[in-house]
């Protein structure tokens, strides 16, 4: 009984703490706005929904990133996978826009996966190279200028419209979340992912096709980034250079703040979800406060360190 509750708390503690911290942000932000403007936008459902709509793009990227981090890898090619998917989707246009965009993600994920799983290049460096290649391809494709093509109606509708007052982007995020959560919790693939993250050699010797699972994880991450790119293009009505740059580090931060071990093998999807919400809310409070970029960076860094200090993770190696 005690051991069961202990093992529960190991994974749930960070999630609880992060959720509490979200409350702290909400309260502190509200106190600030109330004192300064006499209003409480952070408590209005409309404002929150709007913030979450923007957060959906980060949430989808983070979902993919989490899968890769769980197998003790990382995907640094997310920024330009996202941008490339957006650019190709807008330039193809028509009904094929979204499938082509997602196809780009699939292709990049496949290349990443093959490089990491079959050539065994550290993902840190291989995905970095792939990111540079994708950037190069897009710069060559657009001639270095902002792409002139526009998002299709479907893309715009998925990203910017609302159904029953709720932004469609949130529905997409919800579908992605359910898929990833079920995959991690309930399928054999999910078990293999955790097994590989804990000890790849042992998983391999248990007859798990670890290379195939690794490729699948990178494909999931690539497709998630591409989906976020397609939606982001729909939201901003067009694709633009560097549109993915703002998603790499926050997605990693969201996954880690959500309690996933950066060394793989441990973490729950709910945590990632909470991590994303935390970062999104932190960003909105900082913009309400008119915080200059310098202050934002500092606060951003301190929050990550603070959260991880509170989680008190990382065991010593003494016996």
């Amino acid at each position, binding site marked *: 009984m005690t051991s069961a509750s202990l093992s529960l708390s190991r994974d749930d503690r960070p999630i609880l703490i992060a959720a509490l911290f979200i409350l702290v942000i909400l309260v502190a932000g509200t106190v600030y706005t109330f004192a300064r403007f006499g209003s409480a936008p952070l408590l209005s459902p409309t404002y929150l929904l709007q913030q979450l709509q923007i957060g959906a793009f980060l949430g989808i990227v983070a979902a993919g990133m989490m899968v890769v981090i769980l197998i003790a890898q990382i995907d640094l090619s997310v920024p330009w996978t996202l941008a490339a998917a957006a650019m190709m989707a807008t330039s193809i246009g028509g009904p094929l826009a979204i499938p082509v965009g997602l196809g780009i993600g699939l292709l990049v994920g496949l290349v990443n996966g093959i490089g990491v799983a079959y050539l065994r290049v550290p993902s*840190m460096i291989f995905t970095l190279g792939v990111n*540079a290649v994708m950037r190069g391809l897009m710069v060559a494709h657009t001639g270095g200028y902002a792409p002139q093509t526009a998002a299709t109606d479907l893309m715009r509708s998925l990203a910017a419209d609302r159904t029953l007052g709720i932004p469609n982007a949130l529905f997409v995020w919800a579908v992605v979340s359910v898929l990833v959560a079920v995959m991690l919790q309930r399928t054999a693939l999910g078990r293999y992912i955790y097994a590989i993250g804990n000890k790849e050699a042992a998983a391999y010797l248990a007859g798990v096709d670890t290379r195939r699972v690794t490729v699948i994880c990178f494909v999931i991450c690539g497709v998630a980034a591409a989906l976020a790119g397609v939606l982001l293009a729909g939201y901003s009505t067009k694709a633009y250079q560097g549109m993915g740059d703002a998603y790499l580090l926050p997605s990693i931060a969201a996954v880690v703040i959500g309690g996933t071990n950066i060394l793989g093998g441990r973490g729950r999807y709910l945590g990632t979800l909470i991590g994303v919400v935390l970062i999104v809310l932190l960003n909105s409070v900082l913009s309400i406060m008119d915080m200059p970029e310098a202050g934002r960076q500092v606060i951003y860094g301190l929050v990550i360190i603070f959260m991880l200090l509170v989680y008190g993770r990382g065991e*010593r190696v003494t016996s």
Partner: protein
Amino acid sequence: MRQRRLALGPSMLDDVAIRVRQNVGIVTAVLLFCVLYVLYNLAHPKGFSSAVLVQNGDEIFALAMLAMAQTVPVLASGLDLSVGAVMTMVGCFASYLLTGTAGGAPLHLDIFGLHLSLGTFPGGISGILLGIVVCLAIGALAGLINGCVVVYGRIQPIIATLATGAVYIGIALFLRPTPGGKIDEDLNWALTNSLGDFAATVHIFDDGAASWFAPVAWIPVPFVLLVLIALLVWVPFRRSVLGRAVYAVGSAEGAAYMSGLPIDRAKIAAFTLAGFFAGCGGLFLAIQTSSGNADIPQAGAYTLNSIASVVIGGTSLLGGTGSAIGSIFGAMILRVISFFFRIFDIAPLLQPLFEGLILLAAVSIGALGVLRVRNTLELFR
């Protein structure tokens, strides 16, 4: 029989063979650089001239320093994602402290609407020397903080430095919201040209005209600095007990603890040294560009290129094997590749693509060894 074998030639040859086998990554990087650089100079209209060397030295130095910086934590199997940020922050400090303004530069701090005067930073040559020391100390301090967060906060290095990197970039942005500041012109001239120019600027060796000095006067100062830092900082560190503890921690942390090694001190030292090297890079970059610039994309690019340099230089990202010397060559290989774009007049638009492809090709060729592995279990260690 065996006794004799131990004492005589074959054993010496064995030793050499063992050393080469253990350092095959570094040897490859050195050879590759030599080939590329000779080719580059052959193709360059003014190849093998001091001017080309000086220009290359200036372009290589900062990345080479960051590559060294990245190597030390990597050896202890931790990644430092803040090296670019530390470089940028130190550069911004330098743009205040190395102005060389006669009579000193007034320093003040504007924060939360307050205007605080911090007194006057000394001018003249002593002021510049002090400024350099302060800048390097700031770099080392940033590294020390990284080390403490990792060791005492027990946070994974990659995440800890991601976070501290954001803080350092924030400080840099606070110091220089827009690019600006200035660096003493003499300092700029002395450090970014040949040894002859250096001597002329600081008035030594008959202003560089001494006859014995002539044979070395063509050597670019950045190369000399690079060699000096490698020889005076890295080599002693590697051969110190603490330096070896860094390798030991990266190789097997548990075993290192069991062997009574100072694990915590080794990790902190690794990050501090990384901060120092990154500070050297930032200082030089500021001197070279005569300004401070809190350029976030540039900081990110330097960090990522430092990782690429480390890998190309034959250091394992898993820790325990490799050397900062190899990383210097890794950085130089990366830079020489971009020099080629200038020579062969490749459309600037295609450069990022080629850079990416070459990086991928390099690491993939290096990884082709996995196809030769006969026992697939060895892939997982």
